[in-house]
């Protein structure tokens, strides 16, 4: 077996930007970024910040003056794009990823990819919630157990949950904006979303009735069946 030095310690250190005899031949980040670079990047960051604010203000201006509604997604894309540019500047120059071991860049990029996949798949699911099966549609009770409408079915067999919620709210005249026709402001508890005191905890009293096979004699006996016999759970299903 070859012998390495007995006490690996500090052998060759150097100050400033130079190259150290490293086995692996990659950058080890002792690059010193010039003050000019730092200040330029700062100026660019400020510029982009004011740009993003400016664009937002411009969008509002256009909407109010020309009554042109710019679609939401443009707002999102532009804002995110500028934020991404600023982030790239910070990461590459302030955090010196440009001069660094590419492994660290790989770590950062993989992290961003993970976040994107998290967001992407979750948004894919929650954006597609509208449809439920016709079969299930019959068993949907708007508000669920313990909710606002107990046992009232809304809509037809083909109604989706989102549809049913909208219909229910309409039916109860609760989904109205904060100022009705007379400009009267209404407390948010009337929106139908919040109940005045949120119900904490469930209880059998507010569950909907159980339909289907149930094991007999496992709770308090129903009135009138006190005198009994030993009951076993029904054999078979």
């Amino acid at each position, binding site marked *: 077996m070859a012998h390495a030095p007995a006490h*690996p*310690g500090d052998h060759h250190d*150097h100050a400033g930007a130079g190259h150290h005899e490293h086995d692996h031949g990659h950058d080890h980040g002792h690059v010193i970024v010039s003050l000019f670079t730092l*200040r330029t990047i*700062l100026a660019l960051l400020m510029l982009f910040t004011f740009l993003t604010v400016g664009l937002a203000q411009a969008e509002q201006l256009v909407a109010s003056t020309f009554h042109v509604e710019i679609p939401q997604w443009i*707002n999102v894309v532009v804002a995110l794009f500028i934020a991404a540019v600023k982030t790239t500047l910070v990461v590459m120059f302030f955090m010196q990823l440009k001069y660094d071991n590419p492994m660290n860049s790989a770590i*950062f990029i993989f992290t961003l990819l*993970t976040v994107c996949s998290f*967001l992407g798949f979750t948004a894919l699911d929650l954006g597609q919630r509208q449809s439920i099966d016709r079969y299930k549609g019959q068993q949907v009770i708007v508000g669920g157990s313990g909710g606002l409408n107990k046992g009232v079915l809304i809509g037809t067999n083909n109604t989706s949950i989102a549809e049913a919620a909208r219909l229910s709210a309409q039916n109860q005249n609760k989904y109205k904006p904060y100022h009705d026709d007379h400009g009267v402001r209404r407390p948010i508890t009337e929106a139908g979303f919040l109940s005045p005191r949120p119900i904490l905890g469930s209880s059998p009293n507010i569950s909907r009735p159980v339909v289907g096979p149930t094991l007999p004699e496992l709770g308090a006996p129903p009135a009138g069946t006190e005198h009994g016999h030993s009951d076993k759970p029904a054999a078979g299903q």
Partner: protein
Amino acid sequence: MATIDTHNPADHAQGDGHQPDLSLPPHERYHAAHHFRDSNHEFDAVKMGVWLFLSTEVLLFSGMFVAYAIFRMMYPEAFIHGSSLLNWKIGLTNTVVLLLSSYTVAAAVRAAQTGNQKWLQRHIVLTFILGTMFLLIKVIFEYYPKWQEGKLPGQFYSYPYWVSPAEPLWWGVYWGATGIHATHVIGGMGLFLWLLIRARKGHFGPKHYNAVEGVGLYWHIVDIVWIFLFPMLYLIH
């Protein structure tokens, strides 16, 4: 363990064999931990470790970003109205403050790399002051008034002027995201205090500035999170 030579005769790198040269400042007497080949090896490993830690921070915030994205998709009116209740000028000020602090911390790393102890300490102090400014602006001009007005998350919401019943949820996302961010700012300021104490003891120099680099990288991530939060929260139209 990584050490600054005090009087241990067994560890030395100055070549004279027995006594460490106590006339040298602490950063010149730095020894990497024994399982590393030398200081540069340790610096590379520490940098990679910090980047991995930063990726965990990004993923932590990603949870809030995903929640934001999902709820913005589901309740766009709530988000638009809620955002209009935020003062974008204060958000812009905070953004500028944080960008400046990113510059000062990058300059602090540069000062350590060039051995400029005076400016190293000054930049650390400046970053600390800017961080404090951020928090003060946030609390005094944003959090406190909102608390007074009832713009609070979930069941604590009591602001009377609402457009969509999901606005308490918007405030939940706002307070959650900015609150977790503010916690990280506070943590960062604690780290800067620690850095300042060590800098005054002369621990940092061209041959050893691992901690300055590490804390700097952390602070940049905190800044990047705010770079995204600002347009996403304040500039929705």
